[in-house]
């Protein structure tokens, strides 16, 4: 079991991802924005992995990842992105994203990717 942070401003996606990950036995914390995610990570040192949406108002997913890596964070990060933003994935990987999934996605694949990323610890 791992502690996973889900960062997304869309309540439907948050509910979907959280429920799937909880069903896999993980502890899930939710943040509705990049700024909120930074607050969570500042107070909780036990987060093993973050599932981060690319497009969020204010601090985007890539901004968040860049800021975390600049602080030396080694957190595993899986980015969710719309297919039309594939060009932005280059920026995402440059910023320090470990893996990504394009929307629409299969919840089973999400769980499998999260499992694989956690196994690489």
């Amino acid at each position, binding site marked *: 079991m791992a502690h996973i942070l889900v960062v997304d401003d869309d309540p439907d996606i948050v509910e*979907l991802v959280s*429920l799937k990950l909880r069903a896999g036995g993980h502890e899930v914390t939710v943040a509705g924005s990049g700024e909120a995610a930074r607050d969570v990570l500042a107070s909780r040192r036990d987060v093993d992995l973050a599932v981060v949406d690319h497009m969020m108002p204010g601090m985007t997913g890539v901004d968040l990842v860049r800021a975390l890596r600049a602080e030396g964070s080694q957190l595993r990060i899986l980015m969710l992105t719309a297919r039309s933003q594939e060009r932005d994935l280059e920026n995402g990987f440059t910023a320090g994203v470990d893996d990504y999934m394009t929307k629409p*996605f299969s*919840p089973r*694949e999400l769980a499998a990717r999260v499992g694989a990323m956690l196994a690489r610890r």
Partner: protein
Amino acid sequence: MTLLTPHLILVALAALWTLIAATVLLILLSHALRRGRSRHREELDRRARPLVVRFALAEEDDPALEGTLARASGAFGDRVDERLLSVLETLRGDSRERIVALLVDRGHPPRLRRRARSRRTTVRAAALRRLGQLALPTDEDLIRGATADPSPVVAAIAIRAAASYPGRASVAAALERLRGRGEVPALVVVTSLIAQGAASADALAAIREGLVDPSSRVRAACAQTLGELTSTADAAALGRLLRRDPTPGVQLAAATALERVGRASAVPALLDGTRSPWGPVRTHSLLALLALPREVTAAALAEVARRPDPLLTPLLAAQPAPPSPEAHP
């Protein structure tokens, strides 16, 4: 003689203040009503969301949950539909199919089809968008037909929705809108073509054929799409377009596409592009050259460097120097 007696002035002032007070009251009332409705919707969403998500993720059939969702009616039923459609946009695989089946059970598609024929453009557009999300085979013709809607907004939504039915017919419907009237932004068409080209070999073939279409807007859109699809197999065709097309906009689209899909075989065309009288074509041809390995572009870049050009010279000067053999023994 004057009509403005003190009594009349007082009455007028009182009437004015009454009017202002009534207006403020009405604004406050309408604001409170809107907030109340919004809160009510949020409350219903909070109830509907976990049910919809549980249903979407269920590994096994849950007749009780399915029954609850299928029977949801009134305002709550509307929010269940909204949540189902929202989740539908995010999911693929079994979960998606299950949600589509539930929306069909709830009688959603016939309602959407009726709305897709509404006289109000916003209603038509919203209905077409959702029918595109559902992507039921029965709605293929309806959606494709709506790409010719007199409203550019509705047509744009239909072009996006037509991407749910990738293939020659949907590509043709999207491109047709570029040929005739210019109110639909080319970007909308390109977005639809990208989705279709990625999903269907037939659609990709139709997009390739668009490179020789009589319409320059179609040629430009197809070139841009092939670049976005990173279709390196089309580098030669894009090179020909850059060299021979008479329209600067098409040349620019080809040069920009070659920035992503360029190959060594495109170097002569790109070098020609750097001599174009059109600044953006020269710039993007050079950027496409710079995106290729230096082994295949060294001679072309040297030639560009010999020609003084107010656009290209600063671009070349800003490039890092290639590593010298002495620096890396």
